[in-house]
């Protein structure tokens, strides 16, 4: 009766950005596992994200845990309505990791139009998508989570990606859906990105269990900061090779391409959030515990990620100081993956996922130290969820990922709504959407209305900040 396996997850990458980030994730994951797994055995940790296939076997070749690694196949589904990115993947060093049954492509793209992605392709490919997802699920002993990666500003990731999200809910209602969404910056090239983002937001609010929002601009800022440190920082401060969260860490693909630095950050986010699922540690945090502890109300499931350290300095500092600095940094606005300042907004809940040689006592000490400066909602004053994974990321001795359910997302959403309104007021480009079969104007009004009520909910919570909330009067019982 005792089953030894860990649970599995499937990554669904949709659109150009989704696939680029996804590939960085698989690249870094393979490197991480290669670093740990010296014996070449297909172990529990690997099986959470990879299948082991022996193509010589006639029955499809699936190999159970415990044997030697034959061919690792990613538990992934790749969807794109253009061929460029996926083709590149299939010609690159990751080609062995995906097989053709995991891919779904078309040629013409979505023209940066959410409606084309969601309605046109969503309908045309519905069955194929469901089939591909089913196959990936069937390869799993115990599927716990779907990770969806996509961008919000374009057509495919945004439109088709959110269609896939609702299919996941329909077909696999009991499997957790964690979505990593890349939000466009204000200066985004794509003029209609506000439309696409707002239309997608509604889907995320209604169908995702958790969303990890990432803003392009934050990634740019972090990349610049690291480059500045590498090239001109204080004398004597040399960054250890391959230890930044933007470096490819010498993964399979070798030389890095333009957006690789930014994509590596997001890939590291996924590596860290899944570390407890992939490796063992003294205080495991299961993926289903993330949603349970961090989502107090179903729609308020936007969790702001922050990653530290951004890099490791080559010289060895006093460990404890550096460790404590890591905890402090997790709450600084420079380390958040959206442009937000959680310290000056209100925390509903916070998770700290630590990797490496860190003890429970370090964790508790730092929480005690930082708590007084972090405003938590009155009914969740001790709203901390913690996890410890023994295996650090490659090139670091320890790392920390913080996920904050915090009202600091409100300004981000409000800004997005403003950009939307600017366009919508003038009805700019609207006809491109309304011309798509199945699309109606009500989609727009309902989407912005959904966002507005989300903003309202955050607003109400914000209003309680700093006020001394009296304890709720206790139930009095007849005596």
């Amino acid at each position, binding site marked *: *009766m*005792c*089953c*030894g*396996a*860990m*649970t599995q997850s499937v990554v669904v990458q949709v659109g150009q950005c989704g696939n680029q980030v996804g590939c960085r994730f698989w690249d870094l994951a393979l490197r991480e596992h290669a670093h740990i797994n010296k014996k070449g055995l297909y172990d529990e940790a690997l099986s959470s994200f990879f299948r082991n296939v022996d193509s010589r076997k006639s029955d499809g070749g699936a190999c159970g845990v415990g044997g030697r690694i034959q061919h690792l196949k990613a538990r992934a589904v790749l969807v794109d309505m253009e061929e460029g990115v996926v083709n590149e993947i299939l010609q690159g060093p990751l080609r062995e990791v995906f097989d053709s049954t995991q891919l779904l492509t078309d040629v013409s793209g979505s023209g940066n139009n959410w409606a084309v992605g969601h309605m046109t392709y969503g309908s045309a490919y519905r069955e194929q998508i469901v089939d591909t997802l089913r196959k990936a699920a069937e390869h799993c*002993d*115990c599927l*716990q989570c779907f990770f969806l990666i996509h961008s919000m500003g374009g057509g495919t990731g945004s439109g088709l990606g959110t269609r896939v999200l609702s299919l996941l809910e329909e077909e696999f209602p009991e499997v957790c859906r964690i979505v990593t969404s890349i939000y466009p910056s204000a200066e985004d090239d794509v003029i209609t990105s506000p439309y696409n983002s707002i239309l997608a937001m509604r889907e995320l609010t209604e169908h995702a269990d958790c969303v990890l929002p990432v803003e392009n601009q934050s990634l740019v800022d972090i990349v610049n900061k690291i480059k500045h440190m590498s090239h001109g920082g204080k004398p004597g401060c040399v960054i250890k090779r391959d230890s930044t969260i933007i470096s490819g860490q010498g993964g399979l693909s070798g030389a890095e391409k333009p957006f690789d630095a930014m994509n590596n950050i997001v890939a590291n986010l996924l590596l860290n959030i899944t570390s407890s699922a992939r490796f*063992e540690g*003294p205080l*495991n945090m*299961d993926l*289903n*515990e993330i*949603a*349970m*502890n*961090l*989502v*107090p*109300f*179903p729609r308020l499931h936007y969790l702001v990620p922050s990653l530290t350290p951004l890099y490791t300095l080559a010289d060895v500092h006093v460990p404890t100081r550096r460790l404590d600095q890591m905890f402090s940094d997790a709450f600084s606005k420079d380390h958040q993956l959206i442009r937000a300042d959680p310290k000056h907004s209100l925390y*509903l*809940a916070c998770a700290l996922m630590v990797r490496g040689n860190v*003890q*429970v*006592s370090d964790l*508790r000490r730092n*929480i*005690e130290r930082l708590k007084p400066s972090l405003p938590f909602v*009155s*009914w*969740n004053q*001790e*709203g*901390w*969820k*913690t996890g410890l994974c023994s295996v650090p990321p490659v090139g670091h001795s320890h790392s920390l990922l913080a996920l904050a359910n915090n009202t600091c997302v409100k300004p981000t959403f409000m800004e997005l709504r403003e950009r939307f309104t600017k366009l919508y007021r003038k009805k700019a480009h609207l006809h491109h959407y309304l011309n798509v079969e199945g699309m109606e104007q009500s989609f727009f009004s309902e989407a912005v209305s959904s966002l507005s009520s989300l903003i309202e909910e955050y607003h109400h919570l914000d209003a309680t900040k700093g006020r001394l909330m009296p*304890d*709720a009067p*206790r*139930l*009095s*019982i007849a*005596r």
Partner: protein
Amino acid sequence: MSIVTVQLGQCGNQVGHELFDIICSDAQEGGRERKVYNTASCERFFHRTAHGDLIARAVLVDMEPKVINQSITRAAKSGRWRYGEESHFSQKQGSGNNWANGYCVHGPRHRDVVEELVRREVERCDRLAGLMAMMSVAGGTGSGVGTYVTQCVRDIYPKSFILNHLTWPYGTGEVIVQNYNSVLTLAHLYQLSDAILVHENDTVHKICGQLLNIKHISFGDVNGVIAHQLGSVLQPALTADSHGAYSRNPLGELVSALACHPEYKLLSVCTIPQMSSASMAYSAFSWPGLLKHLRQMLVSNTKMEEGIDWQVRPPAGSERTGSLTGPGFNTSLANLLILRGKDVYSAETAGFEDPGLYSSWLPSGEAFNSWKSPVPFNKYAKSATLVSNSRALLRPLDNMVGKAWNMFASRAYIHQYIKFGISEEDFLDSFASLEQVVSSYSQLC
């Protein structure tokens, strides 16, 4: 008479393993004068295979496999005892820190298998003294599945004694929804259990830090202290009713000594001395010294042997108040003193019979009981354990209910529980039950 233990969830399985390990060690200490005691202890907690191996009378249940695997492996490695090969059940997914997932989904789903494992273990006993379920209240499996399993056991063995050993989490939180899980667990167990024995992580943590001088306290250290204290309660002892032999009805006697009223089932434990093994070699204790400290710890509600407030005294009858915050004095409903070790018959326990310590409802003759064993336990030449039904747990309980209620007032996280099958009504019922318990203990005077 034997006790069957059900270990539930990560905490239950880790503490359970420590408990069996300590008991086995104790029961295998050499010495002719220990023979009867050792035999009684082994019979109580283990059965022997044809080869003479000791197999724990235990069922291990968890919704994920890692901890059970670790406990089984470590037991086998000890070379002195092990768990039964077929005595465990686990799944892959875990309960996600969600009581409702444990109670409404996992529990019923695996009911038959778990009941069968318990039955098998019970049938191996010549005579059943009762069952003990070990779990934490903060997570999803120990709390939710643990409650469901307790219910099943109660249904199958309506006349047996059931003791629940609960570990309460650190106040500053391990799991955000721990207070909900705790409230739901306690409310349900109050109807099912004969007695609820509680250890608080905060208290045990302090013992590790201040008395045992451990610098980087791990859960292993905490579990070791809990196991020591629990072992000192459950190991064989001579009671007033056992007529010179080791009691054959330990759980029954524990329950009748302490938990005679359905509104008062919460028991706390205090064991002294507690010290690092390094210090033990240089320490000598007298019974009068130990008992004086223990009595003052009871009176001032200090849970460990440091920082005792010697100013607190039992109030005169006219000053007795039934309030939550009282003047620092801890009123007891009933106490059970268990003394183990050298010269135990010379120990003078009259201090604990003082009517001033007790509420006026029970005659002090009934409120106080003591058990003795001339055999030292777990390397301590002398040790004294006090199991109390008193106001000691009132404040932690009240805090737990208060925090959970505040969260419930905002309905935060409720959708996560409703998703798995309990309703707001169920929450309200649980809150009402616990307010009743809080009220009962507050009024103890």
